C-alpha cells in the first residue's frame, strides 16, 4: 500500500471536509439549496472515498453493513415518526405547525427532523449499495 502514499494523505485531508460539507448541506437545507438527499449522498461519498483508498475490510471495521441496515431503517422511522408525532399532537399527518411553540418554529423543527431522516437513510443506503458492489468477488 506504500505506493499510494499521496492518495492516502490527500484523502485523509479531504474526508473530514467532505463530511463537514455534508453537514452544512444538511442543516442549511431549509435556508439555502440542499437538504437530506443531497447531504446523504455527499456524506456517503466520504465513506466511498475511504473504501476506495483503504479497502473494503477497513471500511467495514468503521461501519458494518448490519449497522447501516439499522440506520437505513432508522431514517424511515424518523420521517414517518414525525408525521405520527403531529398526529398525536392532534393535527393532520406531517402538519409541522404543532411541533413548535409557534407555527413558524414548528415548520422549522418539522422540516429539519424530516430531512435528518432522509439524510440518514440516503447515506446508509448509498454506502450499503457501494459495499455490496465492492464485495461482489468475495463469494
Amino acid at each position, binding site marked *: 500500500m506504500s505506493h499510494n502514499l499521496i492518495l492516502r494523505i490527500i484523502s485523509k485531508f479531504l474526508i473530514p471536509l467532505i463530511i463537514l460539507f455534508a453537514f452544512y448541506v444538511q442543516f442549511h437545507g431549509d435556508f439555502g439549496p440542499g437538504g437530506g438527499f443531497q447531504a446523504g449522498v455527499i456524506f456517503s461519498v466520504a465513506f466511498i472515498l475511504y473504501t476506495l483508498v483503504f479497502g473494503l475490510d477497513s471500511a467495514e471495521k468503521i461501519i458494518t453493513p448490519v449497522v447501516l441496515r439499522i440506520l437505513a431503517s432508522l431514517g424511515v422511522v424518523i420521517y414517518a415518526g414525525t408525521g405520527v408525532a403531529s398526529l398525536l399532537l392532534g393535527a393532520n*399527518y406531517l402538519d409541522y405547525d404543532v411541533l413548535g411553540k409557534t407555527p413558524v418554529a414548528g415548520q422549522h423543527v418539522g422540516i429539519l427532523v424530516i430531512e435528518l431522516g432522509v439524510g440518514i437513510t440516503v447515506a446508509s443506503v448509498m454506502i450499503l449499495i457501494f459495499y455490496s458492489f465492492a464485495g461482489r468477488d468475495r463469494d
Partner: protein
Amino acid sequence: MIDQHVSLLLVVIPLLAAPFVAVLPGRHLAWLATQIITAICFALAIYQLLQVLQGGIISYELGGWAPPWGIEYRIDAANALLAVIIAGIAAITAPYSLASVQREIPQHQHSLFYASFLLCITGLLGISLTGDIFNLFVFLEISSLSSYALISMGKQRQALTAAYQYLIMGTIGATFFLIGVGLLYAQTGTLNMADLAARLPEVIQLRTVHTAFGFILVGVALKLALFPLHLWLPNAYTFAPSVVTIFLAATATKVAVYVMLRLNLTIFSSDFVLKTPANEIFLTLGIIGIIVASATAIIQKDAKRLLAYSSVAQIGYMIIGLGFASIAGLTATLVHIFNHAIMKAALFMAIGAIFYRIGSSRLDDLTGLGRQMPWTFGALIIGGLSLIGVPGTAGFISKWYLVIAALEQDNWLATIAILGGSLLAVIYVWKLVEVLYFKVATSERQDVREAPLLLLVPTWVIALSNIYFGFDTTWTVGVAQTAIKMLGMS
C-alpha cells in the same frame, strides 16, 4: 381520532412497520408483525368503506395544507373498495406466508422479505387512496420497487432475470406516466386530480393535453400488463416466490386498472375520452388479449405460467368493460377487479401449496398429485370454476355484467370474445385437472402428502369466498354501482 385519520393510517401503519420489520431478528417475529399489521389494515379498510358508503367522499389533507396546494387523499367508493381488496388479500396471504416463505426463501432474507411485502402494501394502498397525481406516481414507484425486490427473491435463478425484465418494463411505464403528468402540470399548473378535472376543460383542445393523455395511457397500460405490453408478467409470476405471486396477481395489476379508471373518469372527462380513440383501443386490445392470452395459456407447460397468461386474459375483460364507457361496463370492470382478485388468489394459493410439497410447478411434475392432495385440489377446482365463470361462483357475476354491457351496445364481437374466452378457460383449467387428477403420479412422488393446515386454511377461506360472492353481490355489484355513481357517470 381514528375516525378522522383512518385513510392516512392505512398507508402509514405498513410504512412505519416496514423499517422495524427489516431489522427484526429471526423469522417468526417478522412474520408475526406482518400478520398483525395486515390484519389491522384490513379492519381499517373495511371501516373506511363503511364510512364512505354512509357519509360520502372522505378528504384528508396531508400536513394541513389545503388542496390543491397540498397533497390530498380523496376516497370515494371505488378506491375504498380497492383498499379493501388490497388489505384483504394481504391479510389472507400473511398466514399463508409463514410456511411458504420458510420453504422458498433463505432464512437470512426473511425479515427483508416481510419488510418489502409491507412496503408493497403501502405503495398499493397509497396509489388507491391518493387524490394527487404526482403522489400517485411516488406510490407507484414504492410498490414497483418493492415488487422487483420481492420477485427477485424467487428460488430459481431465473427469478433475477424476471425481476430485471419487470424492472425495465416497469420503469419505462413509470417514465411514460411521469412525462404525461409533467405535461399536464405544464398546461394546468396543478397536480390535484379534482383540480385537474376542473382546469382541464379550458385547455382540452391543446395538443399537449392529448399528448399527456397518450403518455399516461401507455404508461399505465404497461403497468397493468395490457396485451401486447404484458411480456414482463408471465416470467415475473412464474419465478417469484409463491406468496409474492399470490399477492401481486391478486392486487398489483388491479390497482393499475383502477388508475386507468380514475384517469378516464375523474381526471379526463368521459367527453374528452370519447373524442380520442382510447375506448376503441381498449376494446380492440382487450378482445385480442382475451383470445390470444387464453390460447397461449393452453400450451403452457408450467402451472404458474399457465395462470399468469390467464391473468393477462382476465385483464382483457376488465379493459373491455372500461372500453364500453357505460355504467354496466364500468360496473363489470370494478366487480371483476374484486372477483378476479379472489379467484386468482385461490388458484395461486393451491398451486403454491403443491409447490410447497414438491418444489416445482411444472405440469410434468404435478401428475396425479390431485389425488394425494385432495383438499388443495378441491380449492383449485373452485378457483378454476370461478375463473371459467360457472354460475354460483364469483366469476359468473362479473362475466354476466360484462356480457350485459356488451349486448347493451350491440357489440357482438366483444360478446363472442367474452364467451369464447370462457370456453378457452375451460380448456386450460381442464388441462390442470387432467394433469393433477387423471394422470398417475410418478413413482418418486407417491409419498407426497396433503399440504399443511397453515396453507390449506387461507386457501379454503379464499376458495369459499368465491362461492359466497357468487351469491351475495351486495358487496361487489352494490358497492361498484355506488362507486360508478360517485364517479359521476350517468
